């Protein structure tokens, strides 16, 4: 017998939260920001890709996008001059309204009771933020001002259609400056997005222009003021824990060709009375005897009639 069935309690499922810097540099803070001239030339009315190094570098990857949204379609050229209000900026506004508010009749209200007709959206590359952003790690310096989420200041979580919502406030590491309670936007960890009110961002020296039917290149204006960006991602890794329990009387013989002669005799007579085997691998099988997973030990584990073994196998998905 070379297979042993697991009991029900031998297999357990665990979930671990893994956090890590968002940026592909592996560093917690990104302070070099580059754009692609090719992407910018064709898509700047919609969004600007931001890289961690010159986009022609082999390791250059998009870290996040900056986009500008305007309810009235200002700041970008109209799709059709005879159709007022319909431009890339209004399309972006509608996109985020649908995504975040889930209601075409709702407005964005970031600070007090003031409706925000235009805002910037920083959308983190999906492969960078993995599953969600980690509140409390967000520090964005624009000009001379540093903004963070207020996750450490709030006692009750707020939710929108896009999941959790934290206010973007002046401060660091999830705590706002008590002397400045202005909410500059929303930090949306579940969709990897940060919204910043375009009007209020003049506090940091970013002035969005709202010319009608004119490409004001507002995304570039925010890009030009970026100084540093710190952010961590959070991912839940689900693991199967399999407990392999080997009793003293089990698995003490090996059919390894170096252990037996051609006729099946044990190579070493000493092992007739004191058989020993060395475990190096654990195979995980289904009912069909298909080998689904395999675990290797770091060194051979001696098994004989006087030893029992308990191995915990971790299988990540």
């Amino acid at each position, binding site marked *: 017998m070379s297979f042993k069935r697991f009991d029900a309690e031998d297999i357990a499922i665990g979930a671990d939260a893994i956090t890590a810097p968002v940026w592909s540099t592996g560093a917690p803070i990104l302070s070099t920001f580059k754009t692609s001239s090719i992407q910018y030339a064709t898509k700047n009315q919609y969004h600007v890709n931001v890289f961690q190094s010159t986009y022609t570098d082999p390791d250059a990857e998009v870290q996040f996008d900056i986009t500008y949204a305007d309810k009235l379609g200002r700041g970008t050229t109209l799709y059709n001059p005879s159709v007022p209000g319909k431009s890339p900026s209004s399309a972006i506004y509608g996109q985020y309204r649908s995504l975040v508010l889930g209601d075409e009749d709702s407005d964005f209200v970031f600070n007090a009771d003031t409706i925000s007709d235009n805002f910037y959206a920083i959308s983190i590359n999906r492969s960078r933020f993995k599953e969600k952003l980690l509140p409390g790690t967000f520090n964005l310096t624009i000009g001379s001002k540093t903004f963070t989420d207020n996750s450490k200041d709030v006692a009750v979580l707020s939710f929108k259609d896009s999941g959790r919502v934290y206010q973007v406030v002046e401060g660091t590491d999830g705590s706002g400056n008590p002397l400045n309670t202005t909410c500059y936007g929303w930090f949306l960890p579940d969709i990897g997005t940060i919204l910043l009110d375009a009007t209020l961002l003049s506090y940091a020296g970013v002035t969005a222009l709202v010319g009608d039917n004119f490409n004001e290149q507002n995304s570039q204006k925010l890009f030009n003021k970026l100084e540093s960006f710190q952010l961590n991602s959070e991912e839940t890794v689900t693991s199967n824990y399999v407990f392999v329990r080997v009793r003293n009387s089990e698995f003490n013989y090996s059919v390894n060709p170096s252990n037996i002669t051609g006729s099946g005799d044990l190579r070493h007579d000493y092992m007739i009375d004191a058989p020993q*085997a060395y475990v190096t691998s654990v195979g995980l099988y289904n009912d069909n005897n298909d080998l689904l997973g395999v675990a290797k030990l770091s060194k051979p584990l001696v098994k004989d009639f006087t030893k029992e073994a308990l191995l915990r196998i971790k299988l990540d998905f």
Partner: protein
Amino acid sequence: MAYLDNSVVTVDAILTKKGRELMARGDGSFRITQFALADDEIDYTLYNPSHPSGSAFYGEAIENLPLLEAFPDESQIMKYKLTTLPRGTARLPIIASVSNVSLKQGQSQAITPETLNYLGNNNTTENNGYIFTVADVRVASLFTGVGINNDEAIRLNNITTLGTNVSKTVIGTSLNITSTTVNTLFGNRSQLTTSLTIIGRDSGARVTVPLTIKKV
């Protein structure tokens, strides 16, 4: 007084090629229900019963061996399984009567293994049959185990894997195999070679033989 040895060893497992295929299939076949232990990489000729320091050191050379990481190819790992046998066993079961298998395109053959040295008997067919695994299922248009009619064996015989270089496993006291008639698999070659592994379900005895398909 000394620290107690931690009795639980934690090791990370990887999915095999077959495991990934079954997970992608999503039909419930990716369900871990049993395990086996193996001693791949161990060379028992390194075991030294004449070690001058005594029996505690007989396995010294083996026990300090650093091991390689796991291979994802299920046909290249878990080759030599550990088995449970009564204490005092001097001869281990081996599979006899199966040697190299060579077929022409489209040819059929029945393979009936026998086990030597199992529970004091010679040339016995194991009650629970044998596990037959072909490393590359594409070489066989028919690969069916016969002689064992439980649910597990029937289900295995009915599983179809198309177009990918993965293994296939069936159960039976005999194996019926028909080689492929597909010419494109050969390319410019005159023959295809893979391996056929046979494992006794009761004894754990194992043999791997080359399986050659010759183009007609």
